[in-house]
């Protein structure tokens, strides 16, 4: 301890041994992984005609990863699905399988992160591929997820006074619409976010759950239970329609309706803001009005069960207005037959009849309650 040289060598060695393991050893073990096919052939080789994963990032996404780093997104978001025994990441729906070292080999900077104040983003591109949703979320997360702590990034967008084909409409809780045009940086960032998905298998890691059939199965089971206990006397075609309608009502991903975010899973709405569906005179009343609202949305003042509401309902569906006739029929049948409601089913024929009746209407032009009632009379 008294000889400075020996002391220096000692503390250098203590660090050097760890360096040998974590730097030299780790590099030798997994520092030169190469892309691989999803499955190997019988001899353990990559089949000649197989696609290789992970796919390289596109140029725009690569640029976006630099924006992601520069804005400090990594402080709150991880990009790793942990091993099944080390946490419930897969169960939470953050990935079909745990992440492995090979998933990251194309990244210039690996942005694993170590804190989750926001959700994990390893598979966000698979969970949330909708461009418009991502732009709105970057501009003001709270417009989509009211409790979000994610800081808004208004500096990535130009706000314009009039909507145009390049602008995206963001509606806040006080019903004010803003029109934003994404900058090149926002587009890069969204492109990068959409590129984040580990939705391929690798020889060393197979899918733990297969999301392709998982939601259907789960939803099916849930609904079977519901209907077994409550409404077992319903005919099976109605059961199916209600089950499918409930899934659309509750789904916050493409193909879903996102209805529950305003009208709530309970169908009670939010007092003063969003009207209830349970026991609503509109829901249980004329089908044509309902179908019209489901195709084009609704805005302005509306009186439901004697209480006035004033808000905007974008055309339901992700992206807006994308629900098919059958989906609209299913979701309307569902809201007319849950939470104590009981009214006749809506068929896809009825929906297509209304759609062709109003086909001259400009796209995305929302109804007003007055307009609907006038047609009614």
């Amino acid at each position, binding site marked *: 301890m008294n000889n400075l040289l020996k002391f220096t060598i*000692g503390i250098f060695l*203590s660090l050097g041994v*760890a360096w040998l393991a974590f730097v030299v050893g780790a590099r030798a*073990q997994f*520092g030169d992984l190469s892309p691989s096919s999803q499955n190997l052939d019988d001899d353990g080789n990559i089949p000649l005609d197989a696609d290789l994963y992970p796919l390289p990032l596109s140029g725009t996404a690569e640029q976006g990863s630099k924006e992601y780093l*520069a804005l400090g997104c990594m402080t709150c978001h991880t990009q790793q699905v942990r091993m099944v025994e080390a946490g419930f990441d897969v169960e939470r729906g953050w990935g079909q399988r745990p992440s492995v070292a090979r998933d990251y080999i194309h990244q210039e900077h690996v942005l694993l992160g170590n*804190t*989750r104040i*926001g959700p994990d983003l390893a598979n966000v591109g698979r969970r949330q591929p909708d461009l418009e949703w991502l732009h709105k979320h970057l501009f003001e997360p709270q417009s989509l997820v009211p409790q979000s702590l994610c800081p808004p*990034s208004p500096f990535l967008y130009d706000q314009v006074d009039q909507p145009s084909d390049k602008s995206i409409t963001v509606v806040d809780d006080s019903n004010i619409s803003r029109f934003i045009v994404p900058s090149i940086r926002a587009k890069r960032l969204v492109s990068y976010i959409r590129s984040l998905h580990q939705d391929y298998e690798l020889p060393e890691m197979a899918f733990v759950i297969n999301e392709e059939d998982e939601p259907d199965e789960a939803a099916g089971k849930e609904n079977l239970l519901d209907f077994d206990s409550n409404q077992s006397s319903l005919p099976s075609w109605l059961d199916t329609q209600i089950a499918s309608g409930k899934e659309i009502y509750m789904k916050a991903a493409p193909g879903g309706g996102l209805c529950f975010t305003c009208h709530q899973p309970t169908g009670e709405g939010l007092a003063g803001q969003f009207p209830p569906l349970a026991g609503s005179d509109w829901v249980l009343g004329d089908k044509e009005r309902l179908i019209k609202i489901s195709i084009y949305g609704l805005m302005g003042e509306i009186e439901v069960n004697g209480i006035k509401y004033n808000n905007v309902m974008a055309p339901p569906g992700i992206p807006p207005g994308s629900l098919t006739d059958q989906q609209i029929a299913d979701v309307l049948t569902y809201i007319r037959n849950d939470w104590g409601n009981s009214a006749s089913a809506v068929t896809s024929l009825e929906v297509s009849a209304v759609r062709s009746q109003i086909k001259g209407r400009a796209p995305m032009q929302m109804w007003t309650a007055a307009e609907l009632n006038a047609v009614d009379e």
Partner: protein
Amino acid sequence: MKLNSEQIIDKSLKLVVCFFVASAGLWLLAAALFAYISAAKLTDPFFLSSFEYFTYGKIKLAQANAFVYGWGGNSIFAVTLWIVARLAQTESRGRVLVIFAGIIWNLAITFGLLGILDGHMTPHEMLEMPAEVWPALFISYCVIAFFIVVVHRSRKNKETIAPQWFLLSSLLWFPMLFLIAWNGLEINPARGTVQSVLSMWFGQSLIWLWLTPVALGAAYYIIPAILGRAIDKYYLAVFGFWCIATLAPWSVVHHLEGGPVPMWIPAIGTVMSIAMIFPIAVASTNFHSTAFLDISKVWDSLPLRFVIFGTLSYTISSYIGVIFSLPSVAKITQFSIINDFHFNQRVYGFFSMIIFGMVYYILPKITGNEIAKGAKAFHFWTSAFGVLILLLAYLIGGLTHGVLAQQPSLSWASSVISSVMPYFLITELAFIVLGFSQLVFVINVWKAIIPNPFAFWTCGDSQSKPETSA
């Protein structure tokens, strides 16, 4: 008046130590401001949200870097310079070069933090400052370290004691760690998650091998110095030192539990983390069995009160750290705000508290100006209270965060994160308390260094006016 040898050494150190302590204080205030902004942004995401320079991610990293390199780095230089020179019974060397290097160090951090705020950060843990500033930081560090080693080599007594081992090893570990990490991340970058292993290893080792040994060395120095008695069971200290040296660089990687790296890496980390109970126990025994022999004297001496607060915090929180490295617990706490608990207990509850004590001990000796007792006591109580509240909020909030995150059925923003919100609010309040506390500390320090700031202007007094950087 004839000066004794200690006073001569103190006189030779006056300018350099004052320079580093004064700059450290300013960085502490900068870090406190960043800490408040980042905490406030978690309670209200719209706070300052229209300024791109102040995104939460950037502010949080700026705070960590200002704290570790600005406050930590400068105070490490001050404390190491002084203790090493005193124990070597040798006057300091190369003062002009040391001050010059110190100015470069502070300028480099200033540019580095501006770089982070401007979006030029690197993704490597605790190396976030832009690549351009690191050569300047590294060279200025080496200059300062070189002159400290020169003083140590010309020591009168060839026998070395515990404070010297800890301070010297910390001095030498930082450049080694840096070169390893810089080579593997920037010069000759590794591919894929090898980067993550290396960056995590550097970030955590920096706390264990740079900040921790300085605080331990300072405690080994100041406890016997004030109490006037030898360290109890001193023969254990050498064992404790080599345990830290050999185990700490291995133990830090347990944070990668379950991640996309080979399993042996977090597994080794966990085993070594458990083995860390030996050095923790040694330090704890040495400090506390000495201090509790004379507890009333500890209570009366304010510097010592700070130091014992720090060593107690070290013991308790290091044991908590061992528990959190067990895989079954890590599963819950891994990505939660427990990480902030670890960081703050180590750099604040432990390192900074000991440094506060050291500064209050050194400054009156080298400047000859006493610091008002009430101001010191105010600083102690607000710091102790603020740190306790902060750490409890992060600990309980982190457990809540982790446990709820393990329930796949709870929605993320509306259930998991909104349950942690109250704790974010508490941390914001704690940072306000700590901010005031640190302001008092900085005023105390600056008043001791420049008792009459206007004398310099009015009488052209030869009073040394330290350079500032922030």
